[in-house]
């Protein structure tokens, strides 16, 4: 078999080259053809990723690995530029490059005629470079470098229309808030370096065994990075604002790929996390709480993209809920069960990540198509009944919405079921925090209902009811061009069928693949959940999904005025949700305002105390200067006279000395 490992570097390298090419040639020479290098490079990376997937299947001895050179050879720190591809990486790679290439193609239509056309594709390529590098990295420092790379791309792309103050502010907010998480991540890397391994490579770090507070601290700091990047409570506030960027960016970066970097990090570090039951229960709780919180906010939002943004936060919370379920501290009597639970948790999270990438990208792109037709109006109160105007967009949005809501037999149904099963599994006997996990399971089920409700609320508000089109759309509210609708249809097919890579109990290809080719999961069994309990999550999830969809239909189609009356009957609750539970206001009051006050204080100190001291020091030579200033009268002959007298004095002194000398 052909050895892929030395060629792994091509997967990130090609988009990087494309990015450089577009950046240097785009604005002047490529212009309206700037998308070609980006699309070709990402498509090639996609093919290479699929090759990696296949060659892993035939590669028996563990992950593909290649060390290119020693990046940092310092005294007791030796970091290699090494890439690796195991099952987890291969799954991530295919999702990133496949969805990335579809979105790049879609952007050709969406961004057509934008003055920053070339810049957009250069930044998208740079993002694909960073993201593929992130999942391919073989040590924590390299991971961190690419981690910051995606953060930078996110900043650049949110602020793509940087002349709009709101976009510039949103970009700044996203960057600063995620930096807060990155700080924790970096401290975790330093702790790993000092306490675990000098090379920071995954192999050496993941063999470390410890059940003291050190491990919990490392895990929580790593999770802190993930919370920032994946927009979990309390750092979730940046993601909804990130919708200021172009819609393809929201789809690619802030729904399908970059925000899942945190999930990838925690999944990657499973061998560390499972050793600390405390860290795991915190991960799961924050995940579940975020899922519920974001779903509650999404229920009342009127901006279509914001509904989807909160839905993304909520679904990411689901993934963390799943990841937090696995632990090895489940009791010595059942090591097999512990392995099975861990494997189930990771598989569930990655599976949901995978399906979510498809249907959320689809939903965002469909929303973009709606926006495109409506003249950039995205407020759902201003349009409705678009079924006839945008027939293809309507169908693709419906596919995505059904998948997200967990409608039976679609992608989201299978993956959500897995997550609920993992939460239920963790609440079984032997787990130190089983009571908590039972609560989390119930939260997850409730969130599933809310998810179905808000998704279909958005769907019914946009596509049903009487046909209304805002004046901004002009007279040409029409379906988007094929370059936009074809990617939508491919993604719609994905949203419907991609669940069958791991549709327990029908198929379990994904689970098998991950278990076989991802070191910590290898050899895990499936003897965890009793058959009787197996259908509890399935049944409850289905029930909640159908209930949510029915409720949305009842409130927004059947009894159209009901929602307004309901909002009036509980004004407090409605206002809380509409204003996102006042998180922005709280942060502003408790964090931003005090910091601004401190900055103002420092400014006054600097202006009057520090500058004053400097001015005083400067004033002393000026005062002495008063003595000598009249000499400078500008008369040439006066200067010549002074010089002559000086020479005379000098000569006299010299002669005097010589006369006195013995």
């Amino acid at each position, binding site marked *: 078999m052909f050895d892929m490992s030395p060629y792994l570097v091509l997967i990130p390298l090609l988009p990087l080259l494309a990015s450089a090419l577009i950046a240097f040639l785009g604005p002047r020479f490529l212009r309206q053809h700037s998308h070609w290098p980006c699309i070709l490079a990402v498509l090639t990376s996609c093919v290479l990723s699929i090759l990696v997937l296949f060659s892993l299947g035939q590669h028996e001895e563990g992950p593909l690995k290649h060390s290119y050179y020693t990046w940092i050879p310092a005294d007791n720190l030796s970091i290699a530029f090494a890439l690796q591809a195991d099952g987890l990486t291969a799954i991530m790679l295919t999702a990133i490059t496949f969805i990335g290439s579809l979105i790049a193609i879609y952007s050709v239509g969406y961004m057509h005629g934008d003055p920053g056309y070339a810049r957009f594709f250069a930044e998208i390529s740079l993002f694909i470079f960073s993201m593929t590098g992130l999942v391919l990295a073989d040590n924590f420092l390299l991971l961190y470098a690419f981690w910051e790379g995606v953060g930078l791309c996110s900043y650049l792309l949110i602020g793509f229309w940087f002349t709009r103050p709101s976009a510039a502010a949103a970009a700044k907010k996203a960057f600063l808030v995620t930096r807060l998480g990155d700080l924790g991540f970096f401290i975790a890397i330093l702790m790993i370096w000092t306490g675990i391994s000098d090379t920071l490579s995954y192999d050496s770090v993941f063999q470390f065994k410890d059940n003291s507070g050190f491990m919990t601290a490392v895990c929580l700091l790593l999770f802190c990075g993930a919370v920032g990047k994946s927009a979990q409570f309390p750092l979730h506030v940046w993601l909804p604002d990130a919708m200021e960027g172009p819609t393809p960016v929201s789809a690619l970066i802030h729904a399908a790929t970059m925000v899942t970097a945190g999930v990838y990090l925690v999944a990657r570090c499973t061998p560390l996390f499972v050793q600390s039951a405390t860290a795991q229960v915190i991960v799961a709780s924050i995940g579940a709480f975020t899922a519920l919180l974001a779903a509650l906010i999404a229920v009342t939002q009127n901006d279509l993209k914001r509904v989807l943004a909160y839905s993304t936060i909520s679904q990411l919370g689901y993934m963390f809920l799943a990841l937090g379920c696995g632990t090895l501290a489940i009791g010595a009597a059942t090591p097999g069960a512990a392995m099975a639970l861990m494997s189930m948790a990771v598989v569930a999270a990655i599976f949901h990540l995978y399906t979510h990438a498809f249907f959320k990208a689809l939903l965002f792109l469909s929303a973009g198509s709606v926006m495109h037709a409506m003249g950039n109006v995205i407020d759902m109160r201003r349009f409705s009944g678009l079924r006839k105007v945008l027939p293809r967009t309507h169908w693709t949005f419906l596919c995505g919405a059904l998948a997200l809501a967990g409608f039976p037999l679609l992608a989201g149904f299978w993956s959500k079921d897995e997550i609920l099963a993992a939460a239920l599994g963790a609440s079984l006997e032997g787990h130190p925090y089983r009571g908590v996990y039972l609560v989390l399971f119930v939260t997850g089920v409730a969130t599933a209902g809310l998810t179905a409700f808000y998704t279909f609320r958005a769907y019914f508000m946009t596509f049903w009811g009487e046909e209304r089109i805002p004046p901004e759309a002009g007279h040409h509210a029409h379906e988007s061009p094929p370059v936009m609708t074809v990617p939508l249809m491919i993604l719609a097919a994905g949203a419907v069928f991609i669940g069958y890579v791991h549709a327990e109990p029908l198929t379990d290809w994904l689970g098998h693949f991950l278990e076989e080719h991802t070191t910590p999961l290898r050899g895990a069994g499936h003897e965890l959940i009793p058959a009787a309990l197996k259908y509890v999550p399935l049944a409850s999830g289905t029930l909640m999904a159908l209930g949510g969809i029915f409720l949305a239909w009842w409130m927004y189609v059947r009894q159209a005025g009901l929602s307004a009356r309901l909002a009036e009957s509980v004004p407090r609750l409605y206002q809380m949700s509409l204003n996102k539970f006042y998180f922005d206001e709280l942060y502003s009051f408790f964090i931003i305002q005090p910091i601004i006050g401190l900055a103002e204080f420092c400014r006054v100190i600097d202006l009057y105390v520090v500058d004053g001291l400097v001015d005083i020091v400067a004033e002393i030579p000026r005062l002495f200067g008063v003595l000598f*200033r*009249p000499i*400078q*009268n*500008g*008369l*040439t*002959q006066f200067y010549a*006279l002074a010089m*002559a007298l000086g020479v005379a004095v000098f000569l006299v002194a010299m002669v005097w000395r010589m006369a006195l000398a013995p």
Partner: protein
Amino acid sequence: MNELPMLHNYLVVGAILFALGTVGFLARRNLIVMFLSAEMMLQGVSLNLVAFARYRSNLQGQAFTLFIITVAACEAGIALALILMLYRRRRSLDVTLWQELREPTVEPTFDEEPLPPPPVEEPLPRLTPAGLEPVHGQETSHV
């Protein structure tokens, strides 16, 4: 042969030239005269160099002097050009008209007793152009 008295003579002439130049440079306000005075100081120094070279029986001082003369010629070209520019700006060669390089707080200096304006010279008699026969009047004598 004792050359020391000879050397003294040359040095005395050089010192006189230098002193005259210094006094001229400090006392005269005409830019061209100041420049000529500076040249005179330069020649005094050159004379010293030549005298010492002769006294020490080597040619270094003389070679040096040749260079000084050459450089002085170049200087003269540039200095006269500059002086011409200055003259065109103010229509005068008075050096005290150029005081801009003083401190901003210092008042400009004015001459308390300005020189009398230069006497208006009698125009020279206009000669008849050559090559033309003068107009002959009637002869005054018939001797």
